[in-house]
């Protein structure tokens, strides 16, 4: 009896299935292409946002062939520590660099600035120009505390590069080039020789990066 009633509807079910398959395929196609577009062409910053542009280099260069082997070393410590980037193969050769930024939120009675807890934003990959969106605070003042480099994109394989710079974002500015930072590493323990580290102005390159990617 059940089979009798199901039989006439089977075609309708198959039709429905086809429609569902087609719609899902269409949705996947649209979302994937939208994702690819978003990856290749980042959105313009909103009026209350600034894109912080920077390039960070370390000398002597990091031996990526050596460090990438840790992606295959069996140790729970590295997996517990978590990763910064899902694209681990990419992260091995181009480690992500995060800017640790603070902004001023208010003043207490003693007129001392009060800074919000530091936020960490992905700004670029090592040795390449990159940019990070950041909401402009009311007083337009932000502090770049330091950059954090994550080798292989792994949290435990992190080293920091000091910056300590206060920046006031000028009115009407939505792209801010911080500079090209070069840090000289003293030894294999990523200790930094600050006397031979510095910031260089590569404004033209930064400008062509902005016009190309935004």
């Amino acid at each position, binding site marked *: 009896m059940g089979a009798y009633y199901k039989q006439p509807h089977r075609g309708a079910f198959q039709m429905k299935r086809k429609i569902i398959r087609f719609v899902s395929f269409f949705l996947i196609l649209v979302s994937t292409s939208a994702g690819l577009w978003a990856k290749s062409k980042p959105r313009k910053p909103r009026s209350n946002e600034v894109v912080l542009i920077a390039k960070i280099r370390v000398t002597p260069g990091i031996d990526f062939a050596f460090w990438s082997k840790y992606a295959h*070393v069996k*140790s729970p*410590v590295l997996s517990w*520590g978590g990763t910064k980037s899902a694209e681990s193969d990419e992260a091995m050769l181009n480690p992500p660099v995060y800017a640790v930024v603070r902004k001023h939120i208010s003043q207490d009675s003693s007129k001392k600035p009060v800074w919000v807890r530091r936020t960490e934003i992905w700004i670029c990959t090592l040795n390449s120009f990159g940019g990070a969106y950041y909401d402009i605070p009311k007083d337009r003042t932000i502090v770049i505390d330091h950059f954090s480099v994550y*080798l292989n994109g792994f949290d*435990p394989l*992190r080293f920091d590069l000091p910056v300590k710079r206060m920046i006031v974002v000028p009115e009407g500015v939505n792209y801010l080039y911080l500079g090209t930072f070069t840090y000289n590493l003293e030894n*294999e*323990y990523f200790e930094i020789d600050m006397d031979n580290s510095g910031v260089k102005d590569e404004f033209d390159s930064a400008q062509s990066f902005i016009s190309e990617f935004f």
Partner: protein
Amino acid sequence: MLKKFLPLTLLPLALVLSSCGTLLAPKSSPYMNNTKVQAAEAGDPSNTAIIYGTLSCPYGVIDKLVFIQMNPAQESFMLTAGMDGSTFYTQPLAVGISLKAIFFREKQSGGELNSFLGIQNRKPIDVRIEKPGLYFAGNLLFSARDKDNPDSGDYGFYPYAKGNEIDSLEKILKVYKGTAWEPIINSRIEELSK
């Protein structure tokens, strides 16, 4: 009646005692990339070094310490130090290796605390092996660099703890008994006993 409830009374007591035992005396062998290292694999004392010392922290007992090899001219590996009480030790490691303590686990009465130490800056526990033999890293306490001022930051293992190098050597001797390291450890104990 007593017979009926005795096991129930003893069970929590046994659990408490066993956890205290774990807290007081962690004991484990060194592991290289998650594989246990046998004492029989002890390297040649003429071109390798054993790093050892003691670890302590204010609120618990450290039962796990992991090093990472930092020198790109050498092999990449993660090394879990052997532990016997507060003493930690490595297997014999080749000259040229640079170790950095990257992780430690602290057992407290309320549970475990995992801490990551990063790969930057060399602290007293981070040894660059420049010559073969025994290398005592010190009696190390996890604290701020200025131990009397916890707000000063830069936390790590510093040689602020009390301890006896001979005690550590005697524990290592048990592991390397019968290997080429035995006379070297014994002569170091004699030297310190004078």
